[in-house]
């Protein structure tokens, strides 16, 4: 099932593997508000209104529960379905128990949950109480049945606008994978995440896949398709404000002032080893200066003071708090939400450093048509970067395969690899601290930066891989990491990928000749070259593969016959390891009920921030836990102000903000300009024909574009209304070979409370013909 994902257009190489699965009799379901090139190749197309993914997925969960299509043995042994939850836990009219209104720090209010009731019942020994009959009304299973029962397909149809018959066909087809012999796979991308309830939608997928027994199995799983080839790698290396390398949280200055405070928050499960990973990271950062006596230089590590997400940082820039910005392969002037505001805010900066392969809109905001450069004092530095084929290093794909690539050609002119740039930049900053001093020079002066004259990717890779500092040897597994300062590692999950500098595992390119497609000798998959995580779940508690025709692990009575690196203790008898198949969670099982989310232990449907409909599932209109950064930005469908649903997306032919593609004549030829897609019925209402120009407006701005009038876009019959939709292609801007308006000028700066990702995929707009 592809949901919120357009594999054919945005991940074309992945489509090859879907086609192969189809050749073998697999069925492809495409869930999307519009008929895409993926839909054209699917067996079942399921149109749903933008912003209703959670309602749709909850509908499938309910369908599986109600019709007993769940994989029962899996459910009992490998999930927390049988765990008993505190009787205090409750849900009423859109709010879970513990709801409390709090100051959001920017003059408004939001809901912050007191999660004490989102907890398990413990017995006298501190163990979680279970009921394997699943009959206890406080069992996760019964609570789920109750919560999801509201999402019957008829109600889901009314909210999503998807015809009931199509929903039924989809639910029947996908929930059939609850059959232990079958595996179902859910692939998703930004059409799931870019909503104010995006993280809960991902959780809904995880719950669905857990109850159908599809996690940890060949052909199963929850598979995020990344927006670019190395998003997985950049996430692993923590190109996000809330984590540090290896998915460890960024310390907060209030809650984690000392290393002991940070370690006191160490979770259970395999994460109990986190202090080893964290201290080894500090050793990689500050080398010999990091000692047990000074908490491994924990004080040098920057701490969060408040939310520093993209939307937040942008707002602080506008308020004058931020003085300079380094935009590394990033172009928020086109790609950010409410992008026009970002360009305005850029004026408040003293300087911008833009590192890119072409001069992008962020670097040229002062040259935007209509802007007077004389009024702008911001100094812009443009550092020309090498393209990915012009430098070596690794990329990590969404299957977590870390693959080394060699430079194919030299970069042109003054363009330099990112590593060259960051190496020079760091050394220049350090020199400045050495000569001029500063408020707090030690974190820079004592930084372990021993790459010599020219840093090489191989050297950095070894630092990331990690070392035993006593012997000086590279480590082969994160199991060797220690918390006493005797080891270092730049990213614990990558340990082993570069353990042998002569033949690093990430450079291996040996195709599998027989097997199930795991290709264990092709590159290196983190962690420890494991291809399928949670893979204990591929076999029943006795060790028999659920599908004997597609075994990953099989217990032969003495040992495991395996085609993967076990994600469990393989030295234990199968019945024992079956008790903890999800080694990263404290419970050891998949969490159908979880207290990890900001907005609820179960996914609940809320409308997008801007919606033409009232929430039909509760009295709470939009996600109450999200921060409203710009209350004045919210448009309304009332009085026909902004009555039309807008959603934004990409094309095969162009990429992100267009720097790599809008400067490529052949691609410009194939897709020469920005356009918007509308249904024939909306075209009739607006009075435009195919190819004519319209102005698309939201409460935040407007732009002009030609229309593509197509039956691939259809109105939705939802909530008793006929709702039209405008599909917005957004790759363009005013820099480069092919120029066009910035469509993100009209998207909202409102995001998910867990991830802060902006709601690019569902908001309100209006359109009128250009006369």
């Amino acid at each position, binding site marked *: 099932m592809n949901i919120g994902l357009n594999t054919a257009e945005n991940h*074309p190489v992945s489509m090859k593997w879907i*086609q192969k699965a189809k050749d073998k009799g697999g069925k492809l379901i495409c869930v999307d508000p519009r008929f895409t090139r993926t839909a054209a190749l699917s067996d079942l197309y399921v149109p749903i209104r933008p912003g209703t993914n959670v309602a749709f997925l909850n509908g499938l969960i309910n369908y599986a529960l109600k019709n007993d299509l769940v994989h029962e043995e899996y459910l009992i042994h490998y999930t927390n379905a049988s765990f008993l939850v505190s009787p205090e836990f409750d849900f009423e009219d859109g709010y879970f128990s513990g709801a409390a209104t709090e100051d959001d720090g920017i003059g408004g209010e939001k809901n912050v949950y007191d999660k004490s009731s989102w907890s398990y019942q413990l017995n006298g020994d501190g163990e979680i109480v279970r009921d394997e009959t699943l009959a206890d009304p406080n069992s996760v299973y019964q609570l789920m049945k109750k919560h999801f029962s509201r999402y019957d397909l008829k109600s889901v149809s009314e909210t999503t606008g998807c015809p009931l018959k199509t929903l039924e066909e989809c639910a029947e087809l996908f929930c059939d994978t609850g059959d232990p012999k079958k595996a179902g796979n859910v692939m998703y991308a930004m059409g799931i995440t870019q909503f104010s309830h995006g993280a809960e939608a991902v959780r809904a997928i995880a719950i669905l896949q857990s109850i159908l027994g599809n996690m940890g199995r060949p052909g199963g799983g929850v598979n995020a398709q990344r927006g670019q080839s190395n998003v997985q790698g950049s996430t692993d290396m923590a190109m996000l404000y809330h984590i540090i390398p290896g998915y460890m949280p960024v310390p907060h200055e209030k809650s984690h002032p000392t290393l002991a405070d940070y370690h006191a928050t160490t979770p259970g499960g395999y994460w109990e080893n986190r202090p080893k990973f964290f201290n080894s990271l500090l050793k990689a950062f500050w080398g010999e200066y990091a000692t047990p006596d000074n908490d491994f230089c924990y004080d040098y590590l920057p701490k969060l003071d408040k939310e520093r997400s993209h939307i937040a940082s942008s707002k602080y820039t506008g308020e004058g708090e931020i003085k300079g910005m380094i935009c590394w392969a990033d172009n928020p002037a086109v790609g950010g939400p409410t992008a026009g505001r970002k360009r305005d805010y850029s004026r408040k900066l003293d300087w911008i450093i833009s590192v890119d392969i072409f001069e992008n809109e962020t670097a040229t905001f002062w040259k935007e048509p209509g802007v007077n450069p004389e009024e702008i004092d911001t100094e812009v530095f443009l550092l020309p970067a090498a393209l990915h084929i012009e430098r070596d290093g690794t990329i990590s794909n969404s299957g977590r395969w870390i693959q080394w690539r060699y430079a194919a050609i030299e970069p042109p002119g003054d363009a330099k690899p990112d590593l060259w740039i960051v190496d020079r930049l760091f050394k220049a900053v350090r020199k400045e601290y050495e000569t001029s001093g500063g408020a707090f020079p030690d974190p820079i002066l004592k930084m372990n930066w021993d790459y010599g004259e020219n840093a090489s990717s191989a050297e950095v890779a070894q630092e990331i891989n990690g070392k035993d500092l006593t012997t000086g040897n590279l480590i082969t597994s994160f199991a060797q990491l220690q918390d006493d300062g005797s080891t270092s590692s730049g990213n614990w999950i990558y340990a082993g990928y570069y353990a042998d500098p002569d033949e690093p595992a990430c450079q291996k390119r040996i195709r599998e000749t027989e097997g199930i497609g795991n290709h264990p000798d092709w590159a290196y998959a983190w962690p420890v070259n494991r291809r399928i995580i949670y893979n204990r779940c591929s076999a029943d508690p006795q060790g028999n593969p659920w599908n004997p025709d597609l075994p990953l692990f099989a217990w032969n009575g003495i040992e495991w016959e395996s085609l993967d690196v076990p994600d469990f203790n393989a030295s234990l008898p199968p019945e024992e390891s079956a008790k903890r198949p999800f080694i990263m969670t404290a419970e050891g099982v998949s969490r159908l009920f979880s207290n990890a989310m900001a907005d609820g232990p179960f996914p609940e449907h809320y409308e997008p921030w801007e919606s033409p409909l009232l929430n039909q599932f509760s009295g709470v209109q939009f996600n109450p836990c999200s921060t409203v950064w710009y209350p004045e930005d919210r448009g309304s469908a009332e009085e026909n102000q902004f009555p039309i649903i807008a959603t934004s997306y990409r094309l095969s032919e162009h990429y992100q903000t267009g720097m790599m593609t809008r400067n490529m*004549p052949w691609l410009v030829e*194939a*897709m020469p300009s920005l356009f918007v897609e509308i249904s024939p019925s909306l075209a009739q209402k607006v009075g435009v024909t195919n190819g004519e120009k319209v102005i698309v407006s939201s409460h935040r701005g407007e732009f002009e574009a*030609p229309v593509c009038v197509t039956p691939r876009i259809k109105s939705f019959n939802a909530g008793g209304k006929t709702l039209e939709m405008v599909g917005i292609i957004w790759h363009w801007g005013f820099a480069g070979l092919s120029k066009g308006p910035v469509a993100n000028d009209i998207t909202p700066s409102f995001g998910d409370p867990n991830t802060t990702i902006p709601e690019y995929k569902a908001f309100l707009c209006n359109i009128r013909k250009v006369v």
Partner: protein
Amino acid sequence: MAQSILIDTSKCMGCRACQVACKQWNQLPADSTEFTGSYENPPRVSPLTWMRVTFQEKETDNGVKWYFGNQRCMHCTDAACEIVCPVGAIYHTDTGAVDIDFNKCIGCNYCAANCPFKVISFDRKTDLPTKCTFCYDRVSNGYKPACAAACPTGAIDFGERRDLINRASQRVMHLQNHGSQQATLYGLDEVGGTGMMYILEDTPSQYNLPLAPEVPLQARLWSMLFKPLRIFVVLAMGLGLWTNYNKSRELKDAAKKNKETNPSDYKG
């Protein structure tokens, strides 16, 4: 016919990697295009575009269909262009492709005018016909044509014609048994069999292909009656073409001048 290309349109996702790869390998510059309401661009084959992907939408009782076709020289066995060429410049290569010998070509444009698929474009700048060469330069050196090498889904297959037909027949049967009753293999018998074959899920018209392509009658007549005398015709035409050539040259010079003052060929 030795080698062929088979495009399984049921596996094509319209990504146009083939269209771009064709331009890259054959060093064809981008044309200036504009969005006129379809994903399809450039709008037609031309001296700058030897192959292109077509997009057609169709409303059916089972919802919308979106068909991705592929327009280019079909490399016909019974090739009208070859038949009408007065100087024998068009020929079948040893790999099965239809190619043009530009040393012989006199630029009369008869090939383009008689092509039943309308996929030969006459380049007014060089007075030469242009079309897909089946990547003769690649194929004769053991490589796949650029389009087949670039296709991410394996929708473009290249190989021995007999093998491709075997595979295609099975695929067509599979499609017919799985909801696409109209599925056919196009190019099996059309104009004596074509080097480009397509597995289609719907009627050929949904893919911009003629239902029953034929070598035009006048082309056959021309071939039968006049070919033995063609050298005289050529001499007669020579005079006419001299005028034509001079006119083209004027146009070319004007275009060149225009380009010098307007270096960007691309629309902003």
